[in-house]
């Protein structure tokens, strides 16, 4: 069923009784060409692109809970391509180009909104570091503008330019950055994949990965054994557990990241703003809530919930940067499981087991990567060659030292 304004009117006139299910609820088959472990944003996007671009449709996405129930359903919805290092730069650039037009591609309004992202800086050294990043963005073909203090003031008059602890020197403005409606991204890919014949199987937990003679043969699940020619791991925060089923250890530690949303407010913040002297980023959703977050809670955790010290730190950063938000009230906080890799960048690669693929290490930046992650992973699974935008996202880069350390914090997982 094709969605359109006309369809909304037509169905409305008949009491909305004619809307069809967005996806089927199939029982797992005995065998698939590709089994994707994890029905989050990346898994669903992978399935979609395998079907849409590589003609592979005998695919199952196995999801332990409900579709899009992981980080794609609980993040701060920021979409940007403002990375500074070779490897990440072209990958996120590729992703942003896929975002642009995703509604039409999926026939689903994911509400991608290029409201602009401003990364504020607070010293000369920080400005130069941001300039280095911004120049990489422009060299890559993306957009970046260096705002001075007055430029920031014109755009964001509500920031504290006079009293704040770390004065605002300026900002790196990325006009094509923005936000999207996170759940809709998962649903749009899910619907698109389903329409192309992919089986989306919910409440189906993978309990084992079958390997024979160095080759993957299928998976064990809570809904029975499923044979598969290829198995693609795509389990984000749970990647460690899934890889362990294949006897693998990953350069990943899972931690918790909290995020926050306020009660609805009339429009007051137009773009995405990040603070340079403490991890803090904020935007306002179309519904009116301020959506914001900060750093991870730093400790290894699978609890999907955080603690007060980081929450308070985030709020404190908000109060020193933009004290006008003090009167808004936090409605809800939540926590997700972050697969923090050893250099803060993701992995899209084959493994040493034939037919087993890994997509992991997204840290807390997986949402904006959703289209490119799915696109590049599908390319790898279908062709057994890495996509040119993901050449450097190798599993062995830690061993060779060719890491992509955007935060420049080294190999300690939780520092990225």
């Amino acid at each position, binding site marked *: 069923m094709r*969605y359109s*304004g006309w369809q*909304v009117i037509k169905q409305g006139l008949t*009491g*909305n009784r004619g809307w069809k*299910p967005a*996806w089927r*609820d199939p029982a797992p088959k005995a065998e698939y060409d590709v089994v994707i472990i994890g029905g989050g944003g990346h898994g669903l996007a992978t399935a979609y692109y395998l079907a849409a671009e590589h003609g592979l449709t005998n695919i199952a996405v196995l999801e332990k809970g409900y579709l899009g*129930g992981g980080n794609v*359903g609980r993040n701060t919805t920021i979409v940007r391509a403002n990375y500074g290092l070779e490897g990440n730069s*072209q990958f996120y650039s590729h992703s942003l180009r896929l975002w642009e037009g995703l509604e*039409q591609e999926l*026939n689903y*309004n994911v*509400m*991608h909104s290029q409201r602009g992202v401003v990364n504020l800086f607070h*010293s*000369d050294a920080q400005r130069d570091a*941001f*300039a*280095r990043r*911004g*120049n990489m963005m422009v*060299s*890559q073909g993306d957009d970046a*503008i260096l705002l001075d203090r007055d430029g920031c003031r014109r755009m964001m008059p509500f920031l*504290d330019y006079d009293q704040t602890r770390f*004065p605002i020197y300026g900002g790196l403005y990325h006009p094509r950055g923005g936000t999207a*409606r996170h*759940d809709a991204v998962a649903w749009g890919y899910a619907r698109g994949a389903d329409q192309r014949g992919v089986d989306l199987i919910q409440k189906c937990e993978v309990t084992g990965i079958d390997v024979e003679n160095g080759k993957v043969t299928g998976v064990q699940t809570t809904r029975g054994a499923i044979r598969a020619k290829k198995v693609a791991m795509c389990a984000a925060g749970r990647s460690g557990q899934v890889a362990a089923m294949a006897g693998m250890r990953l350069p990943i530690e899972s931690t918790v990241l909290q995020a926050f949303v306020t*009660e609805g407010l*009339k429009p*007051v913040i137009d773009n995405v703003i990040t603070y340079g*002297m*403490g991890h803090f980023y904020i935007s306002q959703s179309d*519904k*009116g809530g301020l959506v914001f977050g900060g750093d991870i809670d730093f400790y290894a955790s699978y*609890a*999907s*919930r955080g*603690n007060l010290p980081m929450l*308070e730190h*985030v*709020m404190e*950063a*908000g*109060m*020193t940067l933009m004290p006008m938000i*003090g*009167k*808004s009230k*936090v409605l*809800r906080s*939540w926590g997700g499981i972050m697969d923090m890799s050893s250099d803060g960048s993701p992995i899209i690669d084959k493994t040493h087991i034939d037919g087993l693929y890994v997509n992991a290490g997204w840290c807390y930046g997986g949402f904006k990567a959703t289209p490119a992650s799915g696109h590049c992973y599908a390319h790898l699974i279908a062709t057994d060659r890495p996509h040119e935008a993901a050449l450097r996202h190798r599993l062995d*880069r830690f*061993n060779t*030292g060719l890491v992509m350390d955007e935060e*420049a914090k*080294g*190999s300690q997982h939780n520092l990225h």
Partner: protein
Amino acid sequence: MRIEGKGRIDAGQPVRFWFDGQGYTGFRGDTLASALLANGVRLVGRSFKYHRPRGVLTAGSEEPNALMEIGRGAAQVPNVRATVQEIYDGLEARSQNRMGPLAYDLLSVNDLFPNFLSAGFYYKTFMWPRAFWEKLYEPAIRRAAGLGSLSGKHNPNHYEKAFAHCDILVIGSGPTGLMAALTAALGGADVILAEESAEFGGRLLSEEEEIDDQPGADWVASMLDALRDTGRVRLMPRTTVTGAYDQGTYGALERVGLHVDGPAELPKECFWRINARQAVLAAGALERPIAFPMNDRPGIMMAGAVRSYLHRYGVAAGRKVTLFASNDDAHRTALDLMASGVEIAGVIDSRPEARARGDYPLFAGAQVIGTRGRKALGEITIRNNGGEQRIETDCLAVSGGWNPSVHLTCHMNGRPVWREDIAGFVPAEDAVPGLIPAGACNGTYSTAGCLTDGVAAAKQALAAMGGKTREIEIPQASDAVGGSKPLWLVPGKGRAWLDFANDVTSKDIKLAAQEAFASVEHMKRYTTQGMAPDQGKNSNIGALAILADATGRAIPETGTTTYRPPFVPVSIAAFGAGAQGKGFAPERLTSSHDASLERGAPMIEAGLWYRPSYFPRPGETTWRQSCDREVTMTRNAVGVCDVSTLGKIDIQGPDAAEFLDFVYANLFSTLKVGRVRYGLMLREDGHVMDDGTTARLGDNHYLMTTTTAAAGEVMKHLDFVQQCLRPDLNLRFISVTEHWAQFAVAGPKSRDLLNGLLDAPIDNDSFPFMGCGEVSVMGVKGRLFRISFSGEHAYEIAVPARYGEALFRQLVTQAETMGGGAYGMEALNVMRIEKGFVTHSDIDGRVVPFDIGMERMVSAKKMCIGKPATMREGLKGAERQQLVGLKPVGAVQELTAGAHLFEADADPVRVNDLGYVSSVGFSPTLGQFIGLGFLRDGPNRVGEVVKMVDHLRRVETRVEVCAPVFHDPDGEKLRG
């Protein structure tokens, strides 16, 4: 309508307040909601999507409808629950989320097309043409969305944060909480009793209920006396426990100054971090509405709230009241109202077996199937014995039963458990370690049961702490439980609301199920059910029941969404109290801070420190003029600079040398006493962590310096290495950064300057380059290091911090007589670039020793932190970007840090990227811009010309690659 003689308000204290510009009078003790109801104001807001008229629904913080803006200008607070806000003289409230006056909201046009605005409709449209989303659709949606407004101005009010500690935290002060608190206190525990409302007592203040033959409110008063008498109970009214966190940490929000027009210094709110060894959750239960057709009009209220307004505030919510329930509470409400002279037009009880308990019309087995009244309720339609009947009424009190307030027990992922007998979810066992649910929040609904539960919970808490418990007599009270039968949805024409704020109706839930959004989480996200300010406190269970029905599952099988903190919304100003302005981070000042300010130096942030940027002199109008002069002054005469912010770590012990050999890439055991050496410190992953100099003050005594930025990181690292890797080594170390004030004295006249102050003069023999030792400075014992970050003949002199300011003033004054003076960070930076010394601008955390030409510093003679990792194949070779010097050679003479490097004839695009510029400065010594950068295979390209492109600043220039030392490459000046 106010009922004389009823309620707990102070009728002798009238309070004047404003709502939407109209003045009203209430009384002290009123909430905004009770005062508005008393004044006959029924329309108080608009819903989110359809902009339907909304009236007060509840009498608590769970209120979905009566959200208002309070105050004016910068002090304006949006989305305040009128049901919680107490009135004070001059209070200004305004309705919100409307276009035009509240009674004629233009956006209520949305209500004409509900079928086109059904659940998730926006995912299916607004896609064509593509550009229209951002240009047309989204801006329109954003303007219509949102509830109240922020002023956009800086918060002008004071907020606080605080810690509290107790043995037992009791959350809620109804019969359960009061008994728990008393039992705990008598058992010897230090207790905090937190109550959300202004008054303790919970539902006992809202009901006709006797305990030990006293009216409930009197019993509450006697219990409060008893609690005070124990001397162990901290009573915290207006305090909502908002979240349960690990190891007995609770967040709580106290409304300190929101209920008064207090002085400016009175905090509005205080966010408490309560650490409790045990806690008793006595949060009670929330009444649930019934989804019946057109159940959302102002005047339709919760029955329990109607009783609260009557008993607490002396307000009758209507003149002609009807009731609709599936339990005994409707009857109780009717009797209470009748006792106050309010007319009861009918009690509609969906239970066929219901019997009247007083003289009111009862419609047993009947249901409300429709309502009328544009801006407020005027009439209801009921289905009774197969027929329909209309009843005129201005207030319909509804009760669909009660939901235990299990929220806090879910904050650690505990999933509540369905109890069929009460048709409600109760807390899972041990859902939060140390948090014991009791009373109504645990499914115990009778007053007698709550009293017993409270005692039992406190005893359990005491026992868990290993404390003694004392027997306590449980008072006599009613054991009635209300006889509730669930009634979720009344079928009929018209929409039946679940989420009043977000305008989610039963049809939306069914549509979600129809479209495969059958998981409860999918339903929530697709319909926005439960995502409004009340977070579904009123509607989640009802929506769940309808979803269960639509998907053919039982309620427990369908499951619940997750309750997450905070239990009530908490203002960011409270969570982040103290940080506004300068409070976000500590401010570290050097001992020369005041002296530098006196000389007009602008301060810049260096981590937490403030350091002088430059020292302007008369006639200098730009920082560059001052900087150039300070560089030249230092190179030609002498300059003085406070370098106290560098980290200083005093290391002592027989194994100190071995330890340093392990943490530094190069050797320190071979360093002679009285000498200083540059040290390169690596992370274990082989990348440069920090650099600095370390002096050997004695055989077993070293003094390490770190960069300002990495001081804390290095200290932590050293602690790690010693404690976790090498506890076998015998040494101790401690940070002495704050104990010593340290000044660089640099320039050809530096020794002359020092000799004017030192009690015993020095010369090149006593203090050769890289020498160090103790000195006496004007009678003060200090340390002198012959080291240089400027490339000049230079020293750093250290004295105990208390002498720092005096020494700085003396040094600068003396220097000025010699043609020198103080210099700041700008000049320091230029001089170190001239000399090719790296800082964290260059060694940015992605750099290995090979990249900065220091691979040979990694000693082959020993193991050290980071050494094995430097041997990885990707960390050496011509593909790496390595440190070089850069000089402009083209027409454009400017260099910019952050620019990238390309072949001279290449397009400046990513695939051609060769590196970047990390540091630049204008060198007055060379009379041109110079820079440091990282260039692929850089050292092998010295002498070549490449292109520097800064897209952002629009600078493009040809630069010559050179060695990264521009000034005195042979170091003659250092030794002079």
